[in-house]
Structures are given as structure tokens and as C-alpha cells.
């Protein structure tokens, strides 16, 4: 039965596979050098699938950090080297990758998009004396119920971003009398809305809360959710929309809301936890939307940030660049530099000593000086809010302005590490 046709089909397939595989860039291999053994840093992020943007951008940040450190001669003569692993938003992949990293003797791990994967990885880090500094994951659980002496979190967690939003309600958005909500239909979506209400009630007791819709993470057909918000008659003068969605799901909602001019019907639209992916997708016709996230590249004028943005522009990218350097870049960069700072501070590349200096360690980030709070390992850093709107003349079709940094002391919750 084996004839020419299956073989020809295989040949076509092989050719296609090789061409496609050749198109994709392979990670740079470290150059030969006379240095001591390299220090390996595991980057365990979503490199494929729907959240590949998060992982790949974070990986860019980690690469930028490592190139800088290696240009200066590395840490005590050791060059840094990245070992990439694909998280695939799967605890199984994560556990497997963590075990592999442990076997390869890798002690430092960053990356992570899903907080569930961090929770899956934590016991393995504890058993093997590894240090995790998460980049993309934003769950508050990481520094509370899942607190671990081996775990540190760079990104602003959802509680910090909600606190920043509540702060803005009391200051910048005082005109808003009623807030409505759009969130993903999962636990964090509901918890964020509850938390935002609780925090807002404290500072601004007069503010009311109205219609709240929660749609599936997978997106799909969302017009019913949109009409359901519209039917609650939001007012252009004093109704605000609190949006906690992000990524492709946020874009899908916004695209389907566009014909209804949903966002135009509100006095304030605040996307908390989302970022430029939404502004980019809405393009030139986008109304003014506030984005509340840990970092915005235009908000900080210091050497580290300017350098990070400049290096990002030089980095090659698969597919079109549709938005500016995202928070994910800052997170990957900051986590990686934190390892280097800790090794320098500990004057050692031994993970045990690094673990001793990390709690409380102060270091410079693209947002200025920050530190890992000793009690719960949260990164004591500001949250950034920025207004973006459509602008056909700008590089990516949108423009951002009035960036404000909400200081850490106003947003970081009291330490509450409840595990161990």
C-alpha cells in the first residue's frame, strides 16, 4: 500500500514544516567566552497560544536585562543565560518545566502568565531551593494565601490596581456618581468588582454601583452583554465604567461594543489591569479610556526606563508591532534585573544567599526605586494610570497622555501572608 502518494504528501508536509519552522526566530545561543560557568535563569512563560504576547514580550524584557548585564561583564565574571520553557497556561507543563529546570540545576525562575501555574510551581521551588520572581502573574493570592519564602511578585496585583482605581475615583473621577462593571465571568472578575466597591465606599461613600456584566473569558458573541449595559441608561456626565478584562477577550468586547458607541456613553471608562493591547485594537476611532496598570512607558523619565524603551525598539519581533512597549516588558525586565541585583548584593550566586537578601531588597526599576516588602514579598512599587485615545497620526493609531504614577504607599495593601 505504501506508494508514491503518501511519500509525496510527506515530502510536501516536511517541506512546509521546515519552511515554517525556519521562519520563526530561534533563541540566541550564548557566545563562546572565557568566562566562568554561566548562571542560568529559567524563563517559564506563555510562548505559544492565545497569551503568547504576554510571554514573548516578557521574554523580550528578560533578554534586554541579560544583554545589559553581560555587556558589563556579568555577575562576578559569570555571564547570565536564559533557559526558555513554554508555560502553555497549563499546570502540567509548568510542573514538568520546573522539574526539568531543577534537574538542570537552574535556581532562578521568572516569567509566568497564569497565577495558577505559579501556585503549581511554588512547592517545587521550595523543595529544590529555587527562587521564583514572577513577571506577568497578577493574582493577589501569590503574596497572601500562596505566600512562600521562595516566591516574589513583580507585577502589581489586582488588589493594588483596584486600590489605585478607588484612589482615582476619589480624586480625578469625582464627577462620577455611579459605577458600572464589565468583567470576565470567572472568580477574579467578580472579586475585583467587589473589592473595587469596598475600597471606593470607604473613600467616597456617596458613590453608587449599578449594572455589572460578566462575560466568558473565551469571548465569542457578546452583543447581549453590551445591550444589557446600554439598557441601564448610563449617563455621559456622571456614570463610569469599570473594566477589568484584558488581552484578546477585552479586545473582542471592545470591538463588538464599537458600533453601539458603548464607551462614548460613559463619563469615564477605566480599564483596570488591561493595557495598550486594547488601545491598539480600537485604533484611530477609540474614545478616551483610562488604563490602570503597573507600568506605562511614557510615564517615567529616567535612565533605566529610557534605555528599556530604546532597546525594545531595536528588538526583532515576529509579526506586526501593533502597540508600544507593554507592562509585560517591564515585568520581565524588572524580574530579571532583580535576580542580578540580589546576586550582587549577596556577593554570591548561591540561591540560598540570594533568598536571604531578596526580602526587603531595594533596587532601581524603570519606575524608580522599589523594594520587595519583607513580610509578603510584594514589590513595593507604584501603579500607573494613563489616558489613551485614537489618533490616526500616531505610530500605532493611538496616543496616550496625562500619565500619573500612584505611589506605592497609597495602593499596596497591608501585608497578609497567610501561608506558612
Amino acid at each position, binding site marked *: 500500500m505504501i506508494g508514491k502518494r503518501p511519500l509525496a504528501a510527506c515530502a510536501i508536509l516536511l517541506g512546509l514544516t521546515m519552511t515554517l519552522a525556519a521562519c520563526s526566530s530561534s533563541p540566541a545561543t550564548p557566545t563562546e567566552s572565557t568566562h566562568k560557568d554561566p548562571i542560568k535563569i529559567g524563563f517559564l512563560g506563555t510562548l505559544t*497560544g492565545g497569551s503568547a504576547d504576554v510571554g514573548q514580550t516578557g521574554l523580550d524584557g528578560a533578554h534586554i536585562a541579560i544583554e545589559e548585564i553581560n555587556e558589563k561583564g556579568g555577575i562576578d565574571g559569570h555571564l547570565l543565560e536564559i533557559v526558555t520553557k513554554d508555560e502553555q497556561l497549563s499546570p502540567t507543563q509548568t510542573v514538568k518545566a520546573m522539574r526539568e529546570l531543577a534537574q538542570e540545576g537552574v535556581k532562578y525562575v521568572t516569567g509566568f502568565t497564569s497565577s495558577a501555574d505559579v501556585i503549581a510551581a511554588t512547592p517545587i521551588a521550595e523543595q529544590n531551593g529555587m527562587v521564583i520572581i514572577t513577571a506577568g502573574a497578577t493574582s493577589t493570592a501569590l503574596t497572601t494565601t500562596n505566600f512562600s519564602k521562595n516566591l516574589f511578585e513583580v507585577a502589581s496585583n489586582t488588589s493594588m490596581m483596584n486600590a489605585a482605581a478607588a484612589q482615582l475615583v476619589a480624586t480625578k473621577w469625582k464627577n462620577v456618581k455611579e459605577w458600572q462593571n464589565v468583567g470576565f465571568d470567572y472568580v477574579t472578575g467578580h472579586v475585583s468588582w467587589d473589592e473595587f466597591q469596598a475600597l471606593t465606599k470607604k473613600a467616597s461613600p456617596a458613590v453608587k454601583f449599578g449594572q455589572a456584566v460578566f462575560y466568558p473569558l473565551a469571548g465569542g*458573541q457578546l452583543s447581549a452583554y453590551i445591550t444589557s449595559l446600554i439598557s441601564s441608561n448610563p449617563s455621559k456626565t456622571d456614570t463610569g465604567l469599570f473594566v477589568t478584562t484584558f488581552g484578546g477577550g477585552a479586545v473582542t468586547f471592545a470591538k463588538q461594543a464599537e458600533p453601539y458607541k458603548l464607551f462614548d456613553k460613559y463619563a469615564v471608562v477605566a480599564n483596570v489591569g488591561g493595557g495598550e493591547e486594547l488601545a491598539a485594537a480600537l485604533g484611530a476611532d477609540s474614545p478616551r479610556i483610562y488604563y490602570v496598570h503597573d507600568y506605562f512607558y511614557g510615564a517615567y523619565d529616567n535612565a533605566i526606563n529610557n534605555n528599556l524603551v530604546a532597546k525594545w525598539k531595536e528588538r526583532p519581533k515576529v509579526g506586526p508591532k501593533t502597540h508600544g512597549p507593554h507592562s509585560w516588558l517591564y515585568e520581565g525586565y524588572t524580574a530579571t534585573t532583580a535576580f542580578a541585583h540580589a546576586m550582587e548584593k549577596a556577593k554570591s550566586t548561591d540561591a540560598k544567599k540570594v533568598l536571604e537578601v531578596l526580602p526587603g531588597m531595594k533596587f532601581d526599576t524603570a519606575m524608580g526605586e522599589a523594594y520587595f516588602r519583607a513580610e509578603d514579598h510584594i514589590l513595593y512599587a507604584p501603579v500607573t494610570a494613563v489616558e489613551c485615545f485614537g489618533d490616526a497620526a500616531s505610530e500605532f493609531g493611538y496616543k496616550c497622555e496625562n500619565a500619573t504614577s500612584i505611589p506605592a504607599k497609597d495602593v499596596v495593601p497591608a501585608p497578609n501572608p497567610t501561608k506558612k
Partner: protein
Amino acid sequence: MNVLPSIVSGLGDGMLLFLIASGLSVIFGAMRFLNFAHGAFFAIGGYLTYNFLSNLQLTPVLLIGGALLAGLGVAVLAYVSEVVVFRRLYKLPPIDSLLGTYALLLLLEGAILVVWGPNSLSVPYPKGLNSTVRIGSVDVPQYSLLLIAVGVIVVVAMTLLLYKTSLGLEVRALAEDRTMTQLLGVNISGVSAKVMLIGGFLAGIGGALAAPTIALTPDLATSFIIQAFAVVVVGGLGSFYGALIAAVVLGVTQSVVVTYLPSVSGIAFYATMFAILLFRPQGILGKSSLDIS
């Protein structure tokens, strides 16, 4: 409360579902195999539209032109897939064909990431179709009207194709009894290739027209395929009109549940599907259920 707005928005949603599922329905009806790669065809249709149109001042005519081009591109891809992969699957029981179509789905999903990158991309609405019109007491997105119009055109065109051409006769014969059709001297592989071309074309158009309403992300291929299968099966196997009715029923039900029972809205789609199939196993317009194993 007025139930009309949620029915109308559900109608628009349903039309989009139908456009995604229509190609699958034709392939499924005629060839009886489970083409999971259809999701990738749909996604590539959307991405091609991004390439064709993202730098242009988009007008409705341009969008239609881009959609036709994307349809043609995907039709070619479907044809190549037919020759390289699908051809080997027709003889197998339908469930065995899953290995081949799933593998192709993975391959194409990987290719999308390598070619278009990890960013979510978006296609703007064409000028003049980015707002709503008031019909009676309800605001309807103009774009939904376009989708409904295209849906009607697809139904009419497919009806003419299936019932007024010799190809249509062969396709219907194939759907009824593959072996008998072959015995009657019909060139089965030729007809199969044409069916794949048509199915691919419809998938490409579906992806192109969905593009302005969604985010183009690397996992697009897997995120719509299940809903598309649901529409085909709930509609009744191989029944093109059934798929249309099912898409509208599922779209409207979901929409009404979101409005009136928001706490269970997440599972509305699957609950409706579950209930319909239990009460009417052959689907809304189907004659019998297909044995697939």
C-alpha cells in the same frame, strides 16, 4: 421589559455563527468527516483580511472584496489540505478522521503564530458600517445588517448550487450514499475536492467578516470550532438550513439568557445545545444521527 433588543442582537450573533459554520455544514454533510481544521481555515481567513485591508481606508466594498480574496486564499489552502491529508480520511469511520484534522489544526495554529506573531491584531469596521441604525425601537449595528445580508446571499447561493447544478446533484448524492454514488460512476475524488474548495471558501469569508468583531489571536482556530460544530449538529447533520436555524436559535437563546438570567449566561449556549440534542437527537432539521465510530 422589552425583549426585542436582545432578540435582535442575538440574531446578529447567530448570523456570524452561521457564516462560520456554513462551510463546515457543507463538508460535514457531504463527506461525513469531522474537520477540526475548519477552525484554522476560519482563523486564517480573518488574518488574511488583516493583511489585505489593515492599511487601507476601509469601505464596505473593500471589505467585501477582501473577504472574497480571503475566501479564495483559504479555498486554495483547503484544496491543498484535501490532497495532502483529507483524501486519506474519507474511508475511515468519521471519528478516526479526527487524528488527521486535529493534527492539521495544530500545524496551522502553529503556522499562524509564526507568520502573524503573538500580538492580538484587529481589523477596523468599514466606514459607514461602524455605528447602529434604529429599526422600530431597537438599535441594530449596521454591521449586523451586513452579516444578515451576506448570510442570506450564502443561503441563496448554496441553494442554487446544491439544487440547480450538476455539482450540487453529485454533492447531494454523496451525502446520501457515498458507495452508491461511486458505483454510479461519479468521480468521487473530484467532487470531494470541489466540496472542500467550497467549504474553505465559506470558512475564509466567515473569518474575514468576523474579523472586525473579534480579536485576531493565535488561539482563534480552537476557540470557534466547538461552537461551529454545535451549530452543525444541532441544526441536523448535513442540513444547510438546519445550520442556519440552529445558529439563530443558539444566538438568540444566549442573548435572551444574558439579559434575563445573567448569572447562568456563561453556560447558556451549551445548556441549550444539551437540551435540544436530548429532545431531538437528530437535530432540528436532521433525518438521522450519524454514526461516527
